[in-house]
């Protein structure tokens, strides 16, 4: 059974088609990055995976369950890291409270030891009483990652994990995601800038309302595919390890 399957999926907001004829299978333990310009439908793809949106056509399956109709059957097995811009900082929550909040909101008890373990993975176990609102962007993102890891999920979905994140925190996040993947967990990250992840992912999906290309980064980042996705050419460089890196992409809008 695949971790995530898109079977001939189309989706539109009102009359505007955002995603067309998506066919994609993501296997268990795969580490996949979804890349594309602004408005390509990347976040919509994540929302379809989470079962928050109903496809206009086709089916999305997560761990074999229909994502929209049976989301309660897999929700505990999916960790989600939302865009940090969607987080509101009015309530003075400590790091520990932020990590525990989803479980408490669902009426589940959570032990301090589990919270400490999750924070240790991202290297923040010693400041669990600090206010979340006073952390840097990178630290906040690591707390949200720890929160997503708390239930030891089978699948981890991340929406723009590197926005406003310093390089050291980026490296830590990539290290944690690679470790998850090596333990057989499925990791799917929507990104604008693929470079922090590029050496660790199994596949990249290049998206612009439909799948332009999917495969190993070196196969996907051809001149033809980049022009199809972005409408213009983007310079690429091949690093010493032989990976093809696009030099830039759209900024997160």
């Amino acid at each position: 059974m695949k971790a995530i399957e898109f079977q001939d999926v189309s989706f539109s907001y009102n009359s505007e088609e955002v995603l067309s004829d998506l066919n994609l299978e993501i296997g268990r333990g795969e580490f996949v990055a979804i890349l594309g310009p602004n408005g390509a439908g990347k976040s919509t793809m994540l929302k379809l995976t989470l079962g928050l949106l109903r496809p206009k056509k086709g089916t999305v399956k997560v761990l074999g369950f229909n994502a929209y109709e049976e989301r309660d059957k897999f929700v505990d097995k999916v960790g989600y890291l939302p865009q940090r811009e969607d987080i509101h900082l009015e309530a003075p929550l400590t790091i520990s409270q932020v990590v525990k909040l989803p479980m408490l909101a669902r009426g589940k008890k959570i032990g301090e030891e589990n919270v400490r373990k999750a924070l240790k993975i991202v290297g923040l176990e010693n400041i669990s009483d600090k206010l979340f609102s006073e952390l840097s962007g990178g630290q906040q993102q690591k707390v949200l990652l720890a929160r997503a890891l708390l239930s030891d999920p089978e699948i981890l979905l991340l929406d723009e994990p590197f926005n406003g994140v310093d390089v050291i925190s980026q490296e830590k996040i990539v290290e944690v995601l690679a470790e998850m993947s090596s333990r057989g967990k499925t990791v799917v990250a929507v990104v604008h800038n693929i470079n922090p992840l590029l050496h660790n992912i199994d596949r990249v999906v290049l998206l612009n309302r439909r799948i332009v290309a999917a495969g190993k980064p070196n196969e996907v980042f051809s001149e033809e595919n980049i022009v199809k996705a972005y409408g213009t050419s983007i310079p690429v460089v091949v690093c010493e390890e032989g990976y093809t890196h696009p030099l830039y992409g759209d900024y997160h809008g």
Partner: protein
Amino acid sequence: MDELILRALIASLLISLNASVAGTLTVFRRASFLVAGSAHSALAGVALALFLNSIGIDAHYFLFALIAALFFAFLSAKAARRGDVNVGIATAFSLSMALAAIFISLTRNSASNAWQFLFGDILLLTVDDFAIVTISTVFVLLAVSFFYHKFLFISFDPSGAEAMCLNVYLYDFLLIALISVSVVTALKAVGAILVFSIFIAPSSTARILGRSLSSVFVISFILALSSLYLGLVTSFFFSIPSGAVAAAIASLVYFAISWKK
């Protein structure tokens, strides 16, 4: 001690609890204007009740205020779903004021009754009013404690809450409805126009000063209660409306603290 004063002192305590809980959750929800919208919607309900009473039909102000405020909560929650909660609140606000003005103008001898609901008077609470304040406060506190983590989660991270299978729309409506009940509870004591100051100013000040969730609730409660008690004392010695003094104190404290910070 005079029964009216004792009643006013206890009612102030209960209203401060309402103001602390509902006001703080409103500030966390980033919808402070909601309190004003809710109070003015309730006023439309009160005005309808006053009009019906004036033509010989028995109608209790609290019930009508509650229905109007809950209807407003429903409209606001629907607007929030589309991401434009302020437009929803503002439109419902002006609609409510328009209806209130129409009903008050149709009501004979309306001025004094309407005045109490506009500016409130905690010293004029009847035994019935006091019972309403007590029962509503217990209800609001129980309901909020039951849904506390859900309300906190949808205020902090609505996307994450939705992803975790929480019905964000339902809990948002419940939160707005409970805030509305709380506001209606304080309506006769504090008044539709001044309730905003008693609910939002102390909570906003507490949000600036507080370093934890519990400290925000506690500071907000102390500020609301101090303002109301100072209002009562001032009213006792100088014959000035207590609600107006309390609202002025709460607002001035907010401006002083936010300016200092």
